[in-house]
């Protein structure tokens, strides 16, 4: 894991404490707290995990253990437009890999990385359940269906 040092502002710490409080500072609510926090902060840097650990009275190691277990949680800030390519089976047999390769080629980033300008981050996910539209790509909240490698350029153009 790369460690980008983050200075938390006082209001951010207050916000974090509020989130923990809203789950009664229950250790059993850790995953819900992490969800809410990632929703608020966009990602889960080490400093944030430390505050959560302290508030919920669990060890920081345990919090990190949970964060790294679930693929939904990330310690790296996503790009402004997070791109996810569905690599579920339906999308796979309908050519998701080629679409992914095209994104990698054009953006020149690997899966899990963010482009140097912070604009796009690339990740894979397993099935959004829109198999009828395979292969599926999501950019932020927007879902693109029946994407072909040729269509990748057009999708990216929308965010320029």
């Amino acid at each position: 894991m790369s460690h980008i040092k983050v200075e938390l502002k006082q209001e951010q710490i207050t916000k974090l404490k509020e989130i923990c409080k809203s789950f009664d500072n229950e250790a059993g609510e850790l995953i819900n707290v992490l969800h809410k926090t990632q929703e608020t902060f966009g990602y889960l840097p080490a400093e944030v995990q430390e505050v959560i650990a302290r508030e919920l009275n669990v060890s920081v190691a345990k919090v990190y253990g949970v964060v790294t277990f679930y693929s939904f949680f990330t310690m790296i800030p996503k790009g402004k437009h997070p791109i996810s390519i569905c690599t579920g089976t339906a999308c796979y047999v309908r050519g998701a890999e080629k679409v992914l390769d095209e994104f990698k080629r054009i953006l020149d980033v690997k899966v899990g990385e963010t482009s140097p300008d912070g604009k796009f981050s690339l990740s894979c996910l397993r099935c959004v359940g829109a198999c009828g539209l395979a292969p599926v790509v999501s950019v932020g909240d927007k879902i693109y269906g029946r994407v072909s490698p040729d269509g990748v350029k057009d999708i990216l153009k929308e965010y320029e």
Partner: protein
Amino acid sequence: MAKIKSLDDLRMMKESLQSKINLREKGEDPGSHVQIKVAMATCGIASGAKTVMEFMMEELEKRGIESVVTQTGCMGYCYAEPTIEVKLPGQEPVVFGYVDTKKADEIIEKYIKNGELVEGIIPMNYETIDNK
């Protein structure tokens, strides 16, 4: 909403809700409306069902057609999303697939106004058990 206090209350409530719906759906109510259901599950929305639903609501109102547009779950025709079901008073419901705003416009103009079928019909290919 008031709490339902007993099974009997629930049954009565069901009867009245159902007869209302029956009136509407079977077209027994002379002043009944055109009913449109838009399949708004994830794949529907991903294919643009929301836009279609908004378009339908706006346009039907603009064009002065008494109608009820509601959302519903997945109809199963994921390959043909967005799908909508149109039910004209007194008639069997018809499902249309691949509906975009252009198609929606055609459905309003031809089917809803004139009862003239348009292409893109998806025949219902399953039996739904009635709950009785």
